[in-house]
């Protein structure tokens, strides 16, 4: 893969306000998400992470400010134009009843299809490739609603891959998965970045995983930017205290050397353990 400057596939927000009705969820956000990198968005529950992803993917119009992709305002693009460049996996996608894995993944080709054009060999190739990359080829004729959580998540990622976009936004792709399947999904994301050069922006809960798998980290608190930068520069005890209200130590991950958050033992648990 040829190296690209990080200004290609770069998402930027300027003074972005996102609202649901009267409620300001994201306020005054100035953010640059580097192209060609894996970015993790972290923050406490209800801090606006998912809302931000919806704003970045044109599902939610800004109340104020702009979102640009390589300099052009995404809310001035047509939905299809953006869908050719940016794919999104929502937090809890709706699986149509009894749909098979392949039928699901085929829907990822929607932005590439013209109204009357038949299914093309390029479409089929993209679907086969997406199934292959996510390890779901053998499951292609299985109904998605009968798969395990990890398999289902891979099928949904395959849909986003079949869309064949340079940018991929994933909203908590590891939630509800056990550790093995969490790591599978994150390794898959890392491989997509390393082998296929995709730009990935994902919302994660586990700070250690975010530090391991992301090149860039965005920390939100109450809809505002608390910190952004390389995980090693951003993640320290002070930040975790101020954003999550958790006393902790941050030590180098013994495996990877990336920051690892170790919460301090609470007095109750500690005394129980030593008693």
């Amino acid at each position, binding site marked *: 893969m040829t190296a690209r400057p990080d200004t290609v596939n770069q998402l930027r927000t300027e003074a972005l306000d996102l609202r649901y009705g009267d409620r300001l969820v994201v306020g005054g956000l100035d953010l640059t998400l580097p192209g060609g990198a894996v970015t993790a968005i972290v923050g406490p529950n209800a801090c606006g992470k998912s809302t931000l992803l*919806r704003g970045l*993917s*044109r*599902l939610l119009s800004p109340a104020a400010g702009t979102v640009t992709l390589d300099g052009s305002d995404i809310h001035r693009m*047509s*939905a*299809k*134009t*953006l*869908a*050719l460049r*940016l*794919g*999104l*996996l*929502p937090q809890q*996608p*709706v699986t*149509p*009843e*009894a*749909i*098979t894995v392949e*039928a699901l993944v085929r*829907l*990822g080709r*929607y*932005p590439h*299809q013209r*109204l*009357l054009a038949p299914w093309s060999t390029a479409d089929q190739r993209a679907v086969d490739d997406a199934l292959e990359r996510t390890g779901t*080829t*053998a499951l*292609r*004729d299985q*109904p998605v609603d009968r798969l395990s959580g990890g398999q289902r998540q891979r099928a949904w990622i395959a*849909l986003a891959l079949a*869309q064949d976009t340079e940018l991929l*936004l994933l909203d908590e792709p590891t939630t509800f998965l056990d550790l093995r399947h969490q790591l599978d999904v994150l390794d898959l994301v890392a491989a997509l970045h390393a082998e296929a050069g995709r730009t990935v922006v994902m919302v994660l809960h586990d700070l250690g995983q975010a530090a391991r798998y992301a090149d860039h980290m965005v920390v939100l608190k109450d809809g505002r930017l608390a910190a952004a930068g390389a995980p090693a520069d951003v993640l320290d005890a002070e930040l975790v205290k101020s954003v999550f209200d958790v006393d902790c130590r941050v030590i180098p991950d013994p495996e990877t050397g990336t920051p690892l958050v170790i919460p301090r033992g609470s007095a109750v648990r500690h005394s129980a353990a030593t008693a």
Partner: protein
Amino acid sequence: MTSAALFARTTSSARIRLRRRVLLCASCGLVALFALLSVALTTGEMGMPAGTALRALVGLGDPGDVLVVQQFRAPRAFAAIVAGAGLGVAGCVLQRLFRNPLASPDVMGVTGGASLGAVSLIAAGASQTLIPVGALAGGLLSALLLGVFAWRSGVAVTRLVLTGLAVQAGLAAAVNLLIVRFPAELAGSALQWTTGSVYGRTWTEVWGAGGAMVAALAVTLVLHRRLAVLDLGDDSAGALGLSTSAARLQLLFVAVVLASLAAALAGPVTFVALAVPHIVRFLTGPPTAVSLALAGLTGAVLLLASDLVVQHLLPVEGLPVGAVTATLGAPWLLVLMFRQSKPVHRSHA
């Protein structure tokens, strides 16, 4: 490698099985349709062999036979086929659009609007030929009403359903009011119309509604891809570049056109639009573009069969076909409700 090859073989055989099943259902449906059609053309007060009926259909043979087949039996049978196909496809589209197994044109205010349109024209003493046009206009207007009410919510699913129910209730009340205020002789024909009947249809009506129906069915098939993407929920659909509100309105509109055309031909026939999607799902599994076409075939078979039951099997003379479908519909709804006691469909607004 061998296990991968094995998988490839089992998966392809699963797909072939499904394809075979769809093919089998389609051919059974077509055979049933032709069998019912020949029954419809040959039986009646003047029985005749199938060959004679077919020759009479194209204008050959005894002038009496030609008159009976060309002017009475054939238009009635084809009206049932066209209306049934429209109702079947409209029901499929609506149930998927609303993610609700009980959605049908009756719930959307379409049948109420069609009835009001037709009954007002009957009240005004308009000629028989204008009444289908009134029904069509009434159905479309009710959809417009629904759209206006529901638009502000960004066309959210629950709101559409509730608004549709309200619109339907209001229109049904208006129809009842008109019928109550009618002179007795008009009230009879208005009541007959609001039960749903294909009796006395003319070729003009069948060709007019049939042509429009074919066009609407073609549009529905073209829009099927959007329907499939909408099944993914609004966020995924939006991220795939579908403008969900517009797509939902387009699909709603074609479904309303299909149901209104059916109502224009056969009156507000109940049950067909409700039952066909369930029958097709039972026969061929998850919905596809092919199963949408199959729904049209199933609807046609169902309505034609019901009309034959009305004409030849029931001891009472001159019952409208809507009476049979409504009688089938009540127990069907109960069965559905019992089966729905465990939620099958997840609803997302």
